[in-house]
């Protein structure tokens, strides 16, 4: 993300190390908004010269990529469970301390196949949160299942044991737990519930990649866990995903199903589709995996930078990571509290004009989306509350620490001048 340089006359507090300090922004050559007309939404110069999509991350180590990709060319294998995919699966299984890993062309299709394997009982309903990835219910529909949306808690943003159990009935085929951003779901409690109710438990762990739960790495809980390697995720495999499991039968079935159900060249043994990961995407994922610890370190540093710059901004609550456990610090999630002077939509509009790709969190929730398939749910007030107030802020390797400071400065300006900004926005 490019930054526009320029003189700075702005000051604020910082809470680095828990100590409140006066900070002089003028020392850092950070562009500053001095009047409302400096905001890009009112015709001012945007804080950043260009907006980069969430997928536009830092380039990989090109030479390492070509080392892997050359193996693909030398072996004349570009797909169909090639050696790079197999290497990637071994290394991911190791990372997650799971017995098996099965890679796919996308995490969605891995989930579709896993769901169709696990839905052997009940009446085709799956209990899942509404406050989650916007296509998660579609994934259930591809597997021929009916999503029953359950509530989440204010504290964790995830479905609690009680939330899930409230939605279980004789039609429940299995439980799909989707870890939210920043926090983890109650893995222990939900595992106990699934065991007690004799239903399979599947985790959508896309947001929990790299994390640990009570010291154990995510990836070996429930019947299986699903991860994404879309370019915007912690591991960048262009488009890719994978499932980890300790269930050998499930892993074996998924390997067949991702390749049309073939076992060998001619024998079809499962109802499958094409969800194969190709070798070039696997090469990219391997390079990304080689760098994962550095990437997490950089994420943590940016998270701490956000802690520092958002500390003085009242009305914005940075959702804190549990730093005693392993975390990827991939998402910077904030709540706009009652003290924030602007509506969320106004805030997002202003930030987008500044070329800051801030996004509403899980909005609209799945139960409020129009679909061509049947869904089931009760009232979900907490889900609707959270989906209306939370925002993910810009993050990723393209964001320098001074970029983070610019984001903080703009938010600080909005907080100070919100009362004047809101009517001007509405009066356009």
């Amino acid at each position, binding site marked *: 993300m490019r930054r526009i340089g320029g003189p700075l006359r702005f000051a604020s507090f910082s809470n680095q190390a828990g100590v409140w300090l006066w900070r002089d922004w003028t020392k850092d050559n950070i562009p500053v908004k001095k009047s409302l007309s400096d905001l890009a939404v009112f015709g001012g110069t945007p804080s950043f010269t260009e907006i980069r999509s969430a997928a536009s991350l830092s*380039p990989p180590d090109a030479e390492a*990529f070509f080392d892997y990709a050359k193996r693909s060319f030398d072996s004349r294998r570009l797909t169909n469970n090639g050696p790079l995919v197999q290497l990637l699966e071994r290394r991911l299984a190791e990372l997650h301390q799971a017995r098996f890993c099965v890679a796919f062309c996308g995490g969605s299709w891995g989930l579709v196949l896993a769901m169709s394997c696990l839905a052997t009982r009940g009446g085709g309903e799956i209990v899942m949160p509404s406050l989650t990835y916007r*296509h998660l219910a579609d994934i259930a529909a591809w597997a021929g299942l009916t999503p029953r949306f359950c509530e989440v808690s204010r504290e964790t943003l995830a479905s609690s044991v009680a939330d899930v159990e409230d939605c279980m009935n004789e039609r429940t085929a299995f439980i799909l737990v989707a870890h939210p951003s920043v926090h983890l779901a109650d893995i222990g409690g939900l595992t106990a519930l699934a065991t007690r109710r004799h239903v399979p438990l599947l985790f959508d762990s896309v947001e929990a990649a790299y994390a640990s739960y009570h010291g154990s790495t995510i990836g070996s809980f429930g019947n299986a866990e699903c991860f994404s390697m879309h370019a915007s995720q912690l591991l960048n495999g*262009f488009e890719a995903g994978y499932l980890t499991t300790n269930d050998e039968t499930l892993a074996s079935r998924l390997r067949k199903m991702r390749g049309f159900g073939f076992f060998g060249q001619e024998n079809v043994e499962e109802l499958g589709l094409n969800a194969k990961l190709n070798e070039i995407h696997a090469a990219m994922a391997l390079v990304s995996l080689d760098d994962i610890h550095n990437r997490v370190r950089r994420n943590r540093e940016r998270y701490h930078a956000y802690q520092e710059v958002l500390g003085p901004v009242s009305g914005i609550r940075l959702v804190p990571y549990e730093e005693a456990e392993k975390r990827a610090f991939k998402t910077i999630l904030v709540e706009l509290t009652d003290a924030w002077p602007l509506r969320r939509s106004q805030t997002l509009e202003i930030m987008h004009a500044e070329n800051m790709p801030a996004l509403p969190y899980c909005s609209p929730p799945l139960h409020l989306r129009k679909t061509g398939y049947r869904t089931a749910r009760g009232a979900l007030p907490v889900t609707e509350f959270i989906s209306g107030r939370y925002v993910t802020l810009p993050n990723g390797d393209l964001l320098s620490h001074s970029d983070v400071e610019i984001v903080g400065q703009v938010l600080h300006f909005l907080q100070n001048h919100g009362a004047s900004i809101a009517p001007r926005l509405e009066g356009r």
Partner: protein
Amino acid sequence: MSLGKIKPTDLAILGGPVAFSAPLPVGQLNFPEWQRFEEAMRGIFARRDYTDHGPLAQQFEAKLAEFLHVKHVVCVANATIGLMAAAVALGLRGKVILPAFTFIASAQSLTWAGISPVFCDVDPHTHQMDPAQAALLMNKDISAIMGVHLWGNPCFPDEFRELARDHNVPLYFDAAHAFGCTAGSKPVGNFGELEVFSFHATKILNAAEGGCVCTNDDGLAERLRTIACIDSTERIDIPLAGNGRMSEAQAALGLLSLEDYPKVQQRNRDYHEAYRRVLGGFPGLRIQSPPSGEMSNYQYVVMEISADEFGLDRDTLWSILHAENVISRRYFSPGIHRSYYYRDNYPEFVNSLPVTDRLCESVMQLPSGQDMDLEKISRVCELIWFVHRNAKALKPIARRPIR
């Protein structure tokens, strides 16, 4: 170089030396030169656009549209996902007519979309789905006809257009084999409501995995893009979505492959002609050729074997060739109607497709593509001639279990 086999026991299956030191695959496997690939990938890394309908995916779509003379090209992760998205975009329900003599993904795309297949028998000469048979299968539950341009040859597009129009149902095509082919001099990609191509590494156009959906219908193109998560603006309502995005890496490979298409097509044509010229003269062998006057990619060398005339059945010849490292393929054996899931869930078709059953036992593909050359093809032909001449002595092999 001579084959060096004089007597039947010189065959590898009977303990003789293997004719080819490395396996000869059926697939195209058209890799670009490494330097071109490296340059394209460095461009991606410099732009930092990896997916989400990036500049190369857009460029690939534009070039494909120009090449195919079609209004819209929607690039997708692979052809199966393209067919699944197509079923949703067309709003299909109930049942769809398609052949069972095709790759299993054609039927699987329907199953995942909640649609039942109605398998139709094929024409014995062209191997294409038979419009007359399809007409007998039409009823009120049929929501569409899925034609398949098998081996890249046209699947009676005019006859199926009339049939679909008469019954007021959409017609679409699985054109996985047919990139660069024509029907009535019109490029495949322009028939029916939409057509789906494959860019799997074994196809003439190689994006590692990949494919595209072509249509001349603006609304359908928009629905496809939304359903496949290529357009995330949510401007239109769709019943459901599933990630079908093509990455920039796939698009880079596809663009390089498209640049190479003319010379690869000519190479395939030369290889096809070399096989046809020799094997076409052997008793009991017939090489499928494109209809006169049509363009073809010649990516498949399809051989039909009459066991009575050749002296051995297809499976025995296949086993002998495999032992010599000639990795011929028995596409499609069994037919979809006798494959897992479909034979159990749709038993009414198991014994209803006699032509398909016969072809499933008599058709095979011979190696072609970038790993072949004319000298290897000559030796493969020589090997097949050797097998034919010694067919009587090799009969006992036919009684062995096939691998």
